[in-house]
């Protein structure tokens, strides 16, 4: 204890003497130095101050060398409890308890209502089978597959069609994002969740490819909408690979977007748009308004 005290005092003394050196440097030549031999007097003063600093430094070093480092971590004893507030009256426990109970109650209510509303939509793709009778059987999940499976499936498309080039990237951790180029007609970005297609964006050949920006051209915006319809149509939880394969075949049929006229009216254009609809079974082109 004593040694610590001496070391601390020695450091204080050193600090003040260094402070004095800088003070005198800062104020430079002062009136007290008189008129003759100002510079020599000043230099002498500076020298004195610096020798004091030296002496103090030696003191500090001596004091520090006589200290031993403390053994192990410091024992704070009862002061460690300063960080905890243990008086129950001080804590607003009851109030927060009541709030969280009210909140969970509301969540229950809302989810009941939402379930009633959402179950009316037959196009939803649920991740779990709500049919309780299948409990106990292992669910074939389409979104919980390994990246290798997804990769092997995708490489088959690249080989299957020679005017369609497919490249995979994984900017979102393990879920694949496909960049597809269909001849010189269009480009698309398809985002997967495991083996299930989540989102498709179609743009023209010259445009920048982004998952979030829509195409500048009306025709490709329409094709994006139709691609989403196809994606939902081809969804099958039991056979996810077949679903993706059928979607890609459907997608490939868009290669004749500009060259084939509509099967029903025989014209290329209807309200200034080419046939953007492809029938899901026959892959024939139809205009949006002409589709059967």
């Amino acid at each position, binding site marked *: 204890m004593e040694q610590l005290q001496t070391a601390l005092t020695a450091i204080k003394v050193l600090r003040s003497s260094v402070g004095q050196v800088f003070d005198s440097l800062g104020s430079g030549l002062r009136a007290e130095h008189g008129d003759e031999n100002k510079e020599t007097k000043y230099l002498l003063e500076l020298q004195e101050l610096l020798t004091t600093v030296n002496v103090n430094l030696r003191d500090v070093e001596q004091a520090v060398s006589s200290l031993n480092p403390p053994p192990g971590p410091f024992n704070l004893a009862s002061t460690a409890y300063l960080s905890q507030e243990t008086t129950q009256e001080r804590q607003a426990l009851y109030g927060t308890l009541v709030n969280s109970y009210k909140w969970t109650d509301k969540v229950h209510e809302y989810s009941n209502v939402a379930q009633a509303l959402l179950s009316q939509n037959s196009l939803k793709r649920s991740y779990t089978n709500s049919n309780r009778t299948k409990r106990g059987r292992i669910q074939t999940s389409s979104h919980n597959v390994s990246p290798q499976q997804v990769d092997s499936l995708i490489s088959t498309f690249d080989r299957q069609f020679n005017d369609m080039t497919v490249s995979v990237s994984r900017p979102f951790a393990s879920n694949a994002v496909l960049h597809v180029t269909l001849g010189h*007609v269009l480009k698309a970005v398809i985002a997967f969740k495991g083996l299930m297609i989540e989102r498709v964006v179609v743009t*023209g050949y*010259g445009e920048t490819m982004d998952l979030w920006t829509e195409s500048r*051209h009306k025709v490709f915006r329409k094709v994006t909408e139709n691609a989403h319809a196809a994606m939902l149509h081809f969804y099958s939880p039991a056979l996810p690979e077949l679903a993706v394969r059928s979607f890609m075949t459907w997608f490939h049929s868009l290669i004749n977007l500009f*060259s084939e*006229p509509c099967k029903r009216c025989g014209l*290329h*254009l209807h309200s*200034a748009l080419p046939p953007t609809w492809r029938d899901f079974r026959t892959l024939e082109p139809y205009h949006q308004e002409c589709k059967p």
Partner: protein
Amino acid sequence: MGVTVLQQFPMTENRTGPQTIEFLTKRIVALGAVQTGQFLVDCETYMSVPQLGVQKTVHVLHNSEQPASVFAVLESGSKVVPLIADGLFDLLMLKMTSIYTSKKQTKIESKGPRFEIGDFCVKLGSVTMSQNFKGVLVEVEYRPCVVPGSAWDLMREFLQGFIGSVVPNQAPQYLQNRMNDIYQPMDTIQQYLEHFGQYRKTTGVI
């Protein structure tokens, strides 16, 4: 830049230039087009001085669709060299007036309203050469497609829908040699140059 096709619209006796443009405007607006301003394509020609030997011609064109670019086409004998440069190229041509001189009378331009309908862009241009009216040139661009081969049938159908049977069944000669290449803005300029050349010949100049 989508595939672009130029079509000359024949003049009839009972209609002047502006009346023809108005007639076509009425048709295109009836199809649902919206006017989006004006357009201008102009062409100035420079000829080399005789001391340089074989006569060479430089056509300098501007297109309001690409306002920051200047297009230049050099014809020397049978060789044609295109060049795309930025706005200051005009200054350079001014510096070279002692070697390549311009004949102001041959300055030709196509100017008029610009419409958009769906993904099409239609421009109805009155072609004038130093204040003399020469004809009506219609330009149609289908922006989403960049390969002329796939777009030609579609565009012909569109053109026939508002111009009528003037449109030939075959694509213009210029495009026929490039049906499977990616379309470039320079191709539009070359087509304009061809048409301007034809208009110039109609009065015997150049």
